[in-house]
């Protein structure tokens, strides 16, 4: 699949922001001055900024508002509704917290739940697509949730540090380790989720498989088209390896190291840790799209 920057930015940033909402809603984060502000602003900023980026993927963003209408069946619509609900709820919670200095616990919990649900809905936009086995046959929701969780936690810690509060390295390390595990799990499943596992191949796509070995003779057009641009993106093995390495190093090893050093050298290290993590996750998210193969590519000759 074509790794559209707007979607990568959207999923990564909104995941991060919603993860922060989740933790903050549950009550994480120091109750003192600037830290509260940093947490609230960054959480809302990342989530809303991510959401805005997603509009970049729309050919008709002027009609984006219509996406709130189909929550009964569409994960994308649900995601939009949940996102608004989560941010709205968190906004109220954050207002009380930052302005009034009070935590309305039930509101926070609801915001946390909605944030979780939003991330899940985002993941389900991809996980529901049987047409892309690499998304539908793998623990995609778990992965999105884990990334959001770890990122959110780091976000909260980094915001706290910016607000002058102490950071708690232990839980970050734990979250990063767990998420790395989930990422490895997903990757293992993805490696196995060849398109065959849906049973689809060029033979079933054309219905001609029972007659013999099938290959594309001529595509319908010598030029390109929307489908090929969108669905038939191919990434080189070497490139994928390099990006996965970046994902592992920037997304996990560097943040782990910085987090370990933070108690010794200063909480501000959580900021570069977060930046590195986000960069790594972006690389992995890029691969999430770029490596995904769509069954309709069979019609264009992929076996």
């Amino acid at each position: 699949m074509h790794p559209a920057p707007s979607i990568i930015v959207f999923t990564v940033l909104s995941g991060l922001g919603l993860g922060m909402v989740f933790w903050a809603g549950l009550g994480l984060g120091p109750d003192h001055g600037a830290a509260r502000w940093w947490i609230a602003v960054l959480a809302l900023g990342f989530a809303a900024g991510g959401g805005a980026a997603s509009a970049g993927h729309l050919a008709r963003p002027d009609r984006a508002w219509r996406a709130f209408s189909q929550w009964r069946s569409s994960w994308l619509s649900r995601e939009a509704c949940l996102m608004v609900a989560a941010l709205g709820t968190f906004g109220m919670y954050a207002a009380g917290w930052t302005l009034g200095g009070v935590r309305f616990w039930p509101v926070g919990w609801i915001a946390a739940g909605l944030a979780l649900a939003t991330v899940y809905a985002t993941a389900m936009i991809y996980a529901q697509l049987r047409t892309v086995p690499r998304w539908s046959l793998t623990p995609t929701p778990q992965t999105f949730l884990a990334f959001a969780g770890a990122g959110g936690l780091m976000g909260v810690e980094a915001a706290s540090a910016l607000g002058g509060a102490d950071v708690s390295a232990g839980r970050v390390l734990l979250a990063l380790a767990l998420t790395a595990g989930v990422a490895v799990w997903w990757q293992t499943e993805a490696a196995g989720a060849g398109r065959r596992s849906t049973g689809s191949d060029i033979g079933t796509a054309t219905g001609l498989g029972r007659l013999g070995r099938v290959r594309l003779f001529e595509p319908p057009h010598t030029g390109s088209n929307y489908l090929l641009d969108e669905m038939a993106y191919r990434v080189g093995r070497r490139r994928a390896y390099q990006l996965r390495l970046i994902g592992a190093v920037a997304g996990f090893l560097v943040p782990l190291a910085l987090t370990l050093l933070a108690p010794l050298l200063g909480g501000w290290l959580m900021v570069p840790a977060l930046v590195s993590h986000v960069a790594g996750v972006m690389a992995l998210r890029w691969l999430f799209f770029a490596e995904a193969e769509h069954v309709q590519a069979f019609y264009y000759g992929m076996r």
Partner: protein
Amino acid sequence: MSGAAATGPRVETSPHVSDEIRRTTCYMCACRCGINVHIRETADGVPLISYIEGNRDHPINRGVLCAKGSAGIMQHYSPARLMRPLRRKGPRGSGEFEEISWDEALATAAEWLGPIRASDPRKLAFFTGRDQSQSLTSWWAQQFGTPNYAAHGGFCSVNMAAAGLYTLGGAFWEFGTPDWERTRLFMIFGVAEDHDSNPIKIGLGKLKGRGAKVIGVNPVRTGYNAIADEWVGITPGTDGLFILALVHELIRTGHVDVGYLARWTNAPFLIDRNPGPTFGLFLRDEAGRPLVWDRATDRAQPFDAPGLDPALKGDFPAPSGGRASPVFELMARKYLDPEHAPEAVAARCGIPAATIRRLAAEIADAAFHHPVTVDEPWTDFRGERHERVTGRPVAFHAMRGISAHSNGFQTCRALHLLQLLLGTVEAPGGFRFKPPYPKPVEAHPTPHCHTAPNCPLPGPHLGLPRGPEDLALDAEGRPVRIDKAFSWEAPLAAHGMMHMVISNAAAGDPYPVDVLFLYMANMAWNSSMNTAGVIEMLTRRREDGEYQIPRIIYSDAYSSEMVAYADLILPDTTYLERHDCISLLDRPISEPDHAADAIRWPVVPPESQAPGRDVRGFQSVLIDLGARLGLPGFTDEGGRPKYADYADYIVRHERRPGVGPLAGWRGDGTAEGRGAPNPDQLALYVANGGFWQGEVPEGARFMKQANAGYQDWAVAMGFYDKPQPYVFQLYSEPLRRFQLAAEGHGVRQPPDHLRDRIKLAFDPLPVWWEPFEGAGLDLADYPLHAITQRPAAMYHAWGSQNAWLRQIHGENPLYVPAAAMAEAGLSDGDWAWVISHHGRIRVRVRGMRAVNSSTVWTWNAIGKREGAWALSPDAPEARRGFLLNHLIKELLPEKGDGLRWSNSDPVTGQAAWYDLRVRIEKAEGDGESLPRTGRQASPVGPAPSEVRWGSAWTARGEGKR
């Protein structure tokens, strides 16, 4: 989630479709389908084409339409349309022009042509290409008086045409059609697309629906061959061998229609066996009628006498003394020879002997165990009445795959021989002609070439020579025509030899010309062999600095490659803006039970279709030019123009009294075929959808060549002036006359270097020889055959300016058999050198398996010159597409005898496109095909960067921004 109520928004299911439908005839190929052109008017009242669909009432396409036809809108509104007359400013090939007025353009043309006509009319070579108005253009050239006129048939499929005309009285090529309704077994040889495009597809659909068997004989298995029930992946150039092996098997096993042969062919004609100048000719009576041996009276009788019992074998005394044998005996002996046995040809054809034998058996089974009978009483030319017609439901069709070889004429004859042995021509279930065909050779003119200053030619240029006496030779035996058609190099060049004009004119062989006048032929590109060489010839200069071919006038409608090489451009309209006449004087469009002709008419006025556009229909321009030159036939007694324009000519011109370009609604509007000119004729055509159709009467529909009822109807229709029934020519006497000349008889004899070739090639019974190019090469160096196919969705060069079609075929790979790919170390998408004895090109390759193992191929005419067709210079057509033509030389490999041997069929001069032999080698590619031939400036405005056809009247259309 109950959805029953979820009906969705209201959709307008009955939108307004168009303001008006104007019915005319398509022209993205020569098939000539009927179309309904939907017109919508813009707010300012400009009529725009909104939709084109097939006309259901039309005899050719019955409502269906091909991809090109449906993309006609993009053709009509192409940015490559020429806008005004042009005069060359830069050097030839540069594409630099200045716009001039029509008056200036016509005056210039008249200025160039007038003096030629007054001094030496031969100095004009007028050749027209993809033309469907040959009856006008040839008439014009005849009035001008130049011998140098022909149309595109010579490079196209003259082998097919000539073989059919000389054997059957009509050819596969547009003159007839398989009996789709009744045939049981259909074999299609060497056809990718054909002029009969939609009818063949409709027919194949019908056969499939009825469960008839379709066999495709073709090195490549795409298109029609892809849907064949059986594919015979023959090696190119060997069809003659394969067909004669089928003939061998059928004769050997007695599966021939003896009754049909005896009655309707020249199988019983007695052949003179006395050595001497009449050896091998028919025995004839005093009246010139060929004789047969009547077994009832035991003596020779004229073949057309009633009640004969003709012998098909034996050795009889000739009335004039000596011995004679029937054609059939000679033929049977010839083809029973073991050299024609399946085993003898299998390896060469790439078809196992067992397959050939089984196919012969399948053919025999369908033909002789499943006869079809139509209960339609008829009377033959001998006066015998038949209560019914019985036919053999085996049908064949063939086109350029067998004809575009240097052995194509005889291969086509071989196929006709096979048809006749089975009794399948003009009989139900077989191959049936479309009126005005069939016609005997005698009904055609012979070629005329005698010129004199300010004089028309005494008769038409093109025709069918009956013997050496009809050749176009001067007193010294040299060719009279610039293309050397009807010379000893190409004696039966029925359509002329367009592909030799430029190289002969550039070489001044047989003489130089002053003006080359071309119409609708992209001769600087895809219709020439050796394209780069032709470009050099068009730009070659004499010592005095003048071009070798001093003046080139060209009429095109679009910015083609040829435009850049001409000096004066006469811009034509598109097919929707002019009158055209698809005349019975040219080629038929009907199905067998009807005669039909058609017109095109200006469904939209040209000047309304683009601002500043000032173009004219070429035929009207030619008529204007004819009047300016004072040509007889184009001026009246007072020297005034005789016709206002082409429409006027179509209505008022009479070729013979009562016979004009159109057969429908003559006289008072009720006459068909013959009748006085009717001023309302065109209006009546328009009212009828652009075509006319007259029905062949019952009892006249089958066996037309011998059917007295048909003959009378044909005379009444004006196809000819007296009945001329005939029998099919298994044995061709005209060929034998040329052979006799080569053997040293008669006053006109071929030059010595051609004698052997003519002895071989003019065999009166079909023969096969190794295609010349391969025969002259060490095949270890050139192990592969290289051929082209037409893509169904592209018409030669001009589909590439079509916004829709060029998305489908924007570049062409060379398809290479998988084994050959492996051997050359190639994988899909690699670049490779393709090397012939003449040159090398660099192309992109793709592997394929459904192809003959020694054949590579590509789509025809996709490659373009940079700057042509209003495409951006970096268009894929120019950068990655390619022409195979660069590798095809118009001459054969040197034989070391110092002579120039043309790469053509020795009988007709047909260009041997598919004799090409090559090898391939891996190339380091920089992503571009080679050779490059430079860039031409575009004389037409820039092309738009987006097309949204219909936005003028769909509610939306503003775009998202």
